Every structure is written in C-alpha cells, then in structure tokens.
C-alpha cells in the first residue's frame, strides 16, 4: 500500500546507507533543473563527435541492475544504457521517451502507453509492449529482490500487451507518483532476453535501448566501459540533441577516495569526476582549466532525525530546543566551506512543493532554547555542566555508521554541549546500526533523502514507514506518527491536481515544523567537475550527471 519504501534493505549496512541516499536521490525530480554551476563554460561552436570520456566516480554499485539496486551509483551507471518509458524534465513535467504518448483512466488506475515502433535493444531485439510487461513484472518479481524499484511502484498490479505497441498498466490504487517512478533509471527498460538470466548476471551487465552499451559490464573495484550505440535515435525532446551520443565511449573508473578522485582530475588522468566533497569543489572551482558543475538534490535535506517516539526527544520541547539552540546553519557553512546550502525545512528549497512559509522556525535562538529546556524540566546542572532532570543527565545518543559525517558531528556535539545537552556519538558497524534502527534504540539518526517531489514526505513521515523488525528498514527514522498528517497523506495521494497536492503537502510541512520532527542541516549537492574541454554537461532529473549530451572540444 505504501509508497516508496525500500523495506528489504536490511542485509547490508552499505546497502542501507546507500539505499537511504538512493531513495532520496531516486525519487528525484530535480533533475536537470539545477543545471550547471560556476564553472560552466559556453560551448565554443557546434558539438564535436568522437573521443572517449574518462570519468572517475566515487562509488561502485554492488549491482549494476537498477531494478535490483537502490544506489545512486547504479542509477548513474545504468542510465547511459537504459531508457525509460517517460522522461521527467527539470521542472517536473513528463515528456515522451520510449512511450510516444499515454492516457490515464478517470479513476487513476489504468495507464495506457503507446510505444515507439522504431526502437531496438542493442542486442538486436525489438522494443515492444511485451518488453514493457516483462520489465515491470521483473521489477516486482520476488526473485528480483528489488531494494527500491519495486517499492517505487508499490501501487502496480499488472500489465498487459494490448498489441505490439500498446501496453496497459493497472494499479491497485491511484498513485500520483507512478509516472515519476517510471521516469527513474530504476524502472529503465532492459532487454527481455537478459531479464530471464540470473540476478547475479544482471548485476554485472545489462542491455537496453540507450545511447551507450557495455560489452565488458561492471568490473568490481575497477569500473565500466561504454561504447556508443550508433543506432540511437530516440532521445527525449529536452535532451538538447538527437541521434547517437557525441562520445565514442566512456571509461568509468571507481576512485573511492575523495582526494585521489579530484587529484586524478587535476593531474589529467581522467577528464571528469563526480561526487566531490566540499574541499575538492572549493579547490577545483578556483583551478584554471577545470569547470565545476553542480545542482542541489531535490528531496529531504541532510538532517538529524530525532526519535519522536521514545527517549528524551519524545518531548517536543526538547526537540524544539535543539532546533533553536544549535547554530546548524553556521556549522554547515563552516564545516562544508560554504559549498552546501543550509536547510530551512524538511525539504530542500529546490524540491517541487517546498513550503517556505515556515523557514523562520529554523532560525538560531539560544535564549528560546534555554527557555524551552527550563520549561521542560531540564533545570538542573551536573558537574560537567549538562542539564539534568530528577538527577538524570540530558543525554542524546546519535547512532551512525558512516565515517564521512565525523567533522559535522564533532561540531554539533560541541554546540549541544554549550546548550547543556550531551551528544553521545555511537559509531557502530552496519549490522548493529540496522538492528538498533529497527528496534528504535537511538535518539538521533542522520541521513538525507533525495526525491523529485513532496511525495517523499510520505516516505519519511508516514506511520507505515516506521522501521520495525517485522517491516525491515524503512525511512521514517523520526518514528513520527501523527493522525492529522496521516489524513493529509491520504488526501494528497488521491489528489489529481498538482496544486492541491502541493497545498496538502505544504500543510504536512507545517505540522512537521510545529512538531520539530526533523532537525534539517543542509541540502546535498550533486557535483560534476571536468576539464573545460568537456562540454554539454548537465544533470538528469534525479540529480545524476547526464552523460548522453557530453562532447569533447579536445
């Protein structure tokens, strides 16, 4: 019934973290919207065909098949190979891609897609309605063990080929997010012949109708090589150009270390790099000969998610005190060298449906914080200066398993100490993390969650998405349960008008702000840095680098 909750991501810590980020990113709308940042250079002359782009990426997907993998890396690396039925533009609009057109029944449960009849997979097979049916069924088949894609289309019931080029999809209930899900690489169309192979084989190599193909597939700890699909002639309209890709090929290298990745770029070992940390982006923006392109991920900000169900943060006054008493924005600006915009609500400001009317509630106000803590009964002080109530110290356990947040956590801990709150940093291994997440044994967890629209609020604050041992890992880490908000969610899901949907989600954002159900910190930024000869850069709707339109001036 519910929405986009990757429930099964329990088995591996990496998968969890990845899944969380993935989800975020996935739902994404943001797309190309952000466009290029500082370094974008005006294209000098018409695009030039030829050449191979050498690209360094931070993470390798544990599986290349985006039907299975929830990771951002799988989306980035599968997109060049896979097209989708529909394409989502930066502004959130949908346009034809493999589907020429579509109709939605008045009850919102039947989608009829008219497909292009001139498309072929790179293995020679024709693209047709049977391929669409095979793909949707592959995504939801239990054997696929989809960690994200299946939950993105949780409303899916069945599909059938009406004729060779007409596919009809039936939903269990109306879902305004269905087209958005179809537009993501996770619902990319793969060659039906390959879908019959093993899940493990698909993790190495996928075949699609996209502008590139891979012969060697994904090689663990090395990367993946693409060659262009010379027959490609069905790019979506907003892609900016038609026909085959300009590049002859792309060589992707996995370089996990931040400094090594930007070093590989500046030393000329690669032409471009993605996923750069603030130090690298700050340095690269000033390095002649290189351009930095960036866009904010739409969706939920990188935030501290308080456990609203249990422990000291079950008290809304304490949550509000933390929100007002820690200078989140200064900490973000300093620690991230001004590279990430500070958050002003549960959603990043670039998310369609973001409600800016509550921004002032997120201002720094230490006096108000002290007043709130006093009123909540935390009036005592112990020998170390921490506030106490009935002799018990105000102690908050921050549970995490990603070393990259350390520097931020150090500053937040120091700021909380000034407020009289002890932050205990519990850096645990992935297995322990998942166990405690499911048990609700934490006071704070940190994560971000990119997504193309306000629907993500349901994923993050819907009662049915509270992680439990029975349910598995899901994303309401605040364990937020508000009947008024639940009702708004139901209304929003059935809303057919986007304006009405946004109004309802605006209402949800006000409730979340009133309840201080999240402590937002910054909006994550998707980065693509390249030598200036790399032209035609951009971002897809989910915030990934768009590799189709790139060309090399030299």
């Amino acid at each position, binding site marked *: 019934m519910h929405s986009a909750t990757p429930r099964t991501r329990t088995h591996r810590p990496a998968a969890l973290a990845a899944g969380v980020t993935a989800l975020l990113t996935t739902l994404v709308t943001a797309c190309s919207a952000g466009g290029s940042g500082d370094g974008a250079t005006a294209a000098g002359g018409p695009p030039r065909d030829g050449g191979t782009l050498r690209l360094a990426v931070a993470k390798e997907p544990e599986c290349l098949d985006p039907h299975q993998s929830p990771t951002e890396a799988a989306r980035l690396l599968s997109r060049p190979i896979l097209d989708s039925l529909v394409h989502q533009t930066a502004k959130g609009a949908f346009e034809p891609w493999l589907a020429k057109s579509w109709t939605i029944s008045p009850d919102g449960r039947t989608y009829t897609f008219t497909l292009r009849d001139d498309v072929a997979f790179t293995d020679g097979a024709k693209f047709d309605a049977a391929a669409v049916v095979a793909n949707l069924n592959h995504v939801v088949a239990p054997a696929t063990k989809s960690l994200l894609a299946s939950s993105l289309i949780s409303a899916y019931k069945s599909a059938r080929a009406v004729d060779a080029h007409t596919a009809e999809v039936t939903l269990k209930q109306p879902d305004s997010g269905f087209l958005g899900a179809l537009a993501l690489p996770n619902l990319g169309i793969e060659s039906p012949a390959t879908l019959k192979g093993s899940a493990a084989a698909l993790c190495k190599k996928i075949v699609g109708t996209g502008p590139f193909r891979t012969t060697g597939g994904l090689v663990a700890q090395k990367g993946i090589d693409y060659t262009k699909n010379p027959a490609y002639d069905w790019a979506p309209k907003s892609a900016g150009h038609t026909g085959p890709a300009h590049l002859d090929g792309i060589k992707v290298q996995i370089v996990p270390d*931040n400094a090594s990745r930007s070093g590989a770029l500046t030393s000329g070992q690669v032409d471009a790099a993605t996923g750069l940390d603030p*130090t690298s982006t700050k340095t690269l923006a000033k390095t002649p000969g290189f351009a930095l392109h960036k866009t904010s991920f739409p969706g939920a900000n990188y935030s501290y998610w308080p456990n609203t169900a249990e422990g000291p943060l079950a008290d809304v006054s304490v949550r509000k005190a933390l929100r007002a008493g820690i200078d989140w924005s200064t900490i973000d600006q*300093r620690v991230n060298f001004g590279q990430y915009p500070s958050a002003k609500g549960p959603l990043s400001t670039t998310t369609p449906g973001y409600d800016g009317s509550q921004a002032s509630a997120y201002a720094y106000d230490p006096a108000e914080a002290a007043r709130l803590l006093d009123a909540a009964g935390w009036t005592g002080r112990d020998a170390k200066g921490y506030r106490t109530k009935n002799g018990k110290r105000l102690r908050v356990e921050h549970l995490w398993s990603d070393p990259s947040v*350390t520097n931020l956590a150090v500053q937040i801990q*120091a700021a909380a100490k000034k407020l009289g709150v002890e932050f205990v940093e519990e*850096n645990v291994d992935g297995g322990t993390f998942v166990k405690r997440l499911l048990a609700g044994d934490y006071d704070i967890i940190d994560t971000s969650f990119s997504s193309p629209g306000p629907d993500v609020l349901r994923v993050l604050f819907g009662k049915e998405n509270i992680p439990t041992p029975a349910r598995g890992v899901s994303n309401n880490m605040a364990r937020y349960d508000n009947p008024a908000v639940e009702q708004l969610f139901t209304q929003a899901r059935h809303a057919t008008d986007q304006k009405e949907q946004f109004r309802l989600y605006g209402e949800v954002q006000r409730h979340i702000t009133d309840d201080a159900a999240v402590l937002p910190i910054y909006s994550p930024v998707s980065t693509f840095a390249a030598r200036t000869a790399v032209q035609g850069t951009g971002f897809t709707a989910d915030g990934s680098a768009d590799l189709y339109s790139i060309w090399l001036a030299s």
Partner: protein
Amino acid sequence: MTRPRIGLWLGLAVLAVLAAMAAFPGLFTGVDPDAANVNALLRPPGGGHWLGTDQNGRDLYARIVYGARPSLLIGAGAVALALVGGTLVGVAAAQLGRVADQIISRLLDVVLSVPGLLLVFLVVAVLGPGSSTATIGLAVVSLPGFARVARAEVISLRGRAYVEAAYGFGWSRPQVVLRHVLPNALGPVLALATVSLGAMIVASSSLSFVGLGPRPPTAEWGAMLAGSREFLALAWWPAAFPGAAITLAVLAITTVGRHLQRTVDGSTV
C-alpha cells in the same frame, strides 16, 4: 667520535621531552585537545594557536602534546610484549629439545611468512579496533623476530665454557638458564627492541591512519594525519605537524637505539 655523540644527545633530549609529554601533557599546554571550535576551523599557525588548528578547530599543539601518549605507548607496549614473549618462546625452543624446537620454529616461520601489517589487520579485525588490540596485534607480528634472536643466542651460549662449568657444579637447567644463559642472551634482544621500537611506532601510526587505532576523538598522531588528509589542498599544517612529530620521534629512537646496539655488539665481540 664527536658527531655521533651530538646525535645521541639530541636523540636523548627529544626522547626526554616526548616522554615528559606522554607522562604529563598538562605541563605543556592548558588547552583541551578535544575542544572543537566551529569558528576556528583550519586556522594557520600563529596567533592564539602556535601550530594552527585542525579541521574541527581543535588546537594542533595541544593535540600533538596529548597525542604523544597514545602514539608512543602502543609501539612501546607492543615491543615490550614482543620482547618478553619472544624471549620466553626463544629460550623454550632452544632448551626444550629438538621436537619442541622444530615445532616452535616452524610456527614462527608461519607467522613470519605472512606480511606483518596484514597480520596486524587480521588481529585487529578479529578483536575490534582500539589501543589495546593494536598493541597486541603489533606484538604478535614482531614476536617471532625476538624469539629467533633469543633462540640463536641461547644456542650459541649453550656450549660456552662457563655454561658447561655451571652444569658441572651440579646446577639445574632452570638455574643455569636463569643465572647465566638469559642475562647473556638478553643484550642482542634488547638491542633489537630499541631498533624495532621506531618501526613499531610507525606501524602503530599506520594502524591509526587507517582507523584501527585508538577511537576518535582521542588525539593520536597517525589518526590526526588521516583526518587532515582530505583538507590537504586547503591547509598543510594539520598534516605536517603530526607527521613531523612521528618523524622526530622515530629518528630520535632510532639514533639512540643504534648507539645502544653498537655498544652491545662491541661488548659481545
């Protein structure tokens, strides 16, 4: 003759300062090494911070001072453990007969055949990261070296006239080993200890560098290097000073160790 003397005295002076820092860090600085300051990230050396601040705005001088103890103690502890354990094992191999010698020696060969740092990783992976496990891991790796030297020394002393004489006086084997063999075998083992101390400190810093040493926020030189690496393009000081501290400590220890070794070698010839 005067040049090595200067080196020796300099080395001893550095060691004395480091030992004092490790023992009484409060005498060298009144600053809290773990106090983060969001308004003073990556401040260059000078002003209120002699050596600047790190990526968390913590005072680098205070962290280097407080880092001396964990940084040096792991290496020293590992050497001490390996020295005691290795000597016992070596003496046992030399004294308990051919079968025992064969078994012990082959076991030592097995340990020595595995690359040292890899073996330490294994030990730390099994026992969990931390100061004590890092110490144990490093001790396990270096124990065979000590055992071999001890065994060789004991075997070479076995036929010496004064040892034979002791048996002649009707002394028991434990008595002979304790009173005559061990004291004479110990010289080269101790020399090895001083020489390997430097290597052990580098190894323990390496462990901390990859996150297998003391847990953050403990100030430790290797961990400080690792933490600063990401910011190298913006600030050289958070990497340079802990790096210099490690280098200086190892140089001083090696200089003093070499001198001791020469003295021991000279006396045994």
